[in-house]
């Protein structure tokens, strides 16, 4: 498995792992940076300072215990629903593409798109807040209308790698897709 370091659109370092199982099957894994201790400390301290302030005015200990509960529940929800650990793309020629993202708590979401419904994989530009970013996406089609694009599935949405990383993934995918009869 070859690992390379790239950067995402915010400048944070991300790693791209490329594993070539055979000439028609490759798997790409993009890992995001882990949760930073600084951010965790900062959010926890701010919540608790606020709780102490409220306690100072209301003299009610329920405020403090609820602040602790809120912090704990918030952290659990964050690592379970928000923080993505790594996203992977598995391309198997003539069978399909599998896109999966796994969260920091271990939860994994996968979805499989079969080859008959894939029109192409392209690098697309999108307006994201105040910038225009490149992203890799899968163009879908209905088997009945092979020429029309029926949908767009963006890949690597949480890690948002930059163009260098995307080009590498794109080239390997096109190699495999072009061989499909």
């Amino acid at each position, binding site marked *: 498995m070859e690992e390379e370091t790239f950067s995402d659109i915010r400048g944070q370092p991300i790693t791209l792992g490329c594993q070539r199982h055979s000439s028609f*099957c490759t*798997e790409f894994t993009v890992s995001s940076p882990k949760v930073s201790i600084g951010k965790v400390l900062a959010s926890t301290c701010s919540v608790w300072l606020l709780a102490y302030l409220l306690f100072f005015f209301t003299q009610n200990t329920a405020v403090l215990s609820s602040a602790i509960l809120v912090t704990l529940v918030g952290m659990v929800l964050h690592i379970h629903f928000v923080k993505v650990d790594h996203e992977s793309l598995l391309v*198997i*020629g003539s069978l399909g593409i599998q896109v999966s993202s796994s969260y920091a708590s271990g939860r994994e*979401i996968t*979805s*499989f798109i*079969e080859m008959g419904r894939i029109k192409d994989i392209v690098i697309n530009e999108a307006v994201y807040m105040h910038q225009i970013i490149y992203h890799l996406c899968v163009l879908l089609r209905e088997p009945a209308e092979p020429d029309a694009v029926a949908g767009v599935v963006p890949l690597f949405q949480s890690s948002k790698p930059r163009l260098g990383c995307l080009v590498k993934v794109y080239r390997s995918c096109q190699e495999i897709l072009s061989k499909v009869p």
Partner: protein
Amino acid sequence: MVLKIFFPQCCNLADSGLLVGRWIPGHDSAVVLAVIHYPFIPAQVKQYIQQIQRQSGEELAVLGSWSLPKESQEGMESFLRDLSTIFPQERWLQISRKMGKMGFTCQILSRSQRAAGEEREKQSRSEEDGEEEEEKEKVVFVHYDQKKVMLSRLHPVHMEDTQTAAASELRQVFQTVARSQPLFLLDRYDDGPLRSTHWQTEGREGSILVELLKRASVPLCLLLSWPMSIWTRFCRLRIFRIFPLSVLSSKLSTCIQLSHRSEHMRSISAPGAASSHIEFTRKANTVVSVLVDVALGILLMTWLYRDEHVATLASALVPAADRVATELEQLLQWLMGAPAGLKMNRALDQVLGRFFLYHIHLWISYIHLLSPSVEQILWYGGLSAGLGLTFALSLLSDMVALLTFHIYCFYVYGARLYCMKVYGLSSLWRLFRGKKWNVLRQRVDSCSYDLDQLFIGMLLFTILLFLLPTTALYYLVFTLLRLVVVLFQGVLHLSVDFINSFPLFALGQRICQPYRLADQPSELQRRGPDVPDPRLQLLPQRLVGRAGQKAVCRRAGVSMETQELQSRLRTEPRATGC
């Protein structure tokens, strides 16, 4: 060209034998359904396959041979090769595996090669000679969970017979497995001439409750349809079409709920079985909602009829109505004075106020007239909860409507007065400007009026204009009151609709047996030495609705179609070479 072989997980450890399955037309793939073990007589195997073909309608064939040699069996290789001459196929697969090793080996022989007596090994991975790929055929093994694929129901099994080539490959795999049910009826306790391995080899799976329900459903349906036919005939009597009853039955929510429920019961007790899974799910949803409804209603009844709750409710009802009337009277007195500091026209105020006050007085006398029988009415009304909670709620909504009928009347009077006033005002305003409404042309035209017309028009216009605030205020107050009542009734109707139409059966099936609602695989996992043991994962899927594959989109900003539930496939993209 990549050859795909769909191999059932249950056959991973099966004894050596023949592979029975189907070549998927239009795609380069084969699905293996079962393994028939040695010893067998080839003629019997052919007969068996033809019998299964007749029963299931699928084109089954012997795909090749499977060998998992145990210690005592040696020299199987040549035997397996000779088998290919007995079962003539375009391509013959020889899949083998050694105990203790992870990988599978697959050799493919084509007919011409067998005839020529030579065989060429096709390796499934060749790294050294990547340039000679046109000679080597690549093979992808996909292991599937046969039970879950067979039990999945959302792909159309009976449709699209003529377009099999156009259907997607995975859908055809699902269809093939689902339709080959007769193949899976032979388990290892049968004393027939053939032994086979598939997901039901250890014995047929079934649930006693499900079988009992299936057997009991037919007589139950017949039993239900008889009172339903009587009830339908009763409802269609002419007497219900006459004016007052027809209006009442369309306005009262109890009657509407009654007609809904009889519609549901009619659909449940229809004699034929459901033609597709979607219809079956609909029927099941209706049955479950009726059962839940009746259960909740009986719960309500047990609460209502103990501890004299009915009596307490009845005794609280009349004083509550009295209080509402007193509050309304106070409101009218306030309106007749100077409400919120506005100055009203005294004479009109007094007229309207006294008119409404008299109404309230009439209403209170009627309530007092009814008060001795309120308890009886409540008692018998509570019995309707036995039919279902929805009936109790609709009855409550109707009773609220009847009790607040005076508010409804006030609203109607106020609205009519206000409407007439606004209509008159607009017409006289047009006169003021010298215009007229042309009914023929549906537009405003200019018109020359006589002097006396103008004079009277001006008088009336001024009168109406200065009386506008008074009427507007009454209208506003009574509309707000009516809105409160309508809101409460709306909440009741909403809960009734919710109980009527929430698909509980589909939800339960999604939670307990998600694979039945599958249409497509959801996840592939690599099998290899570095991967930990995979777990089962089932994704959310579309509930009762349209069948058919839709695109999978997640947070893409395009039209969000919900993801389909999928059963799980495991792939093995790498098979060790021979």
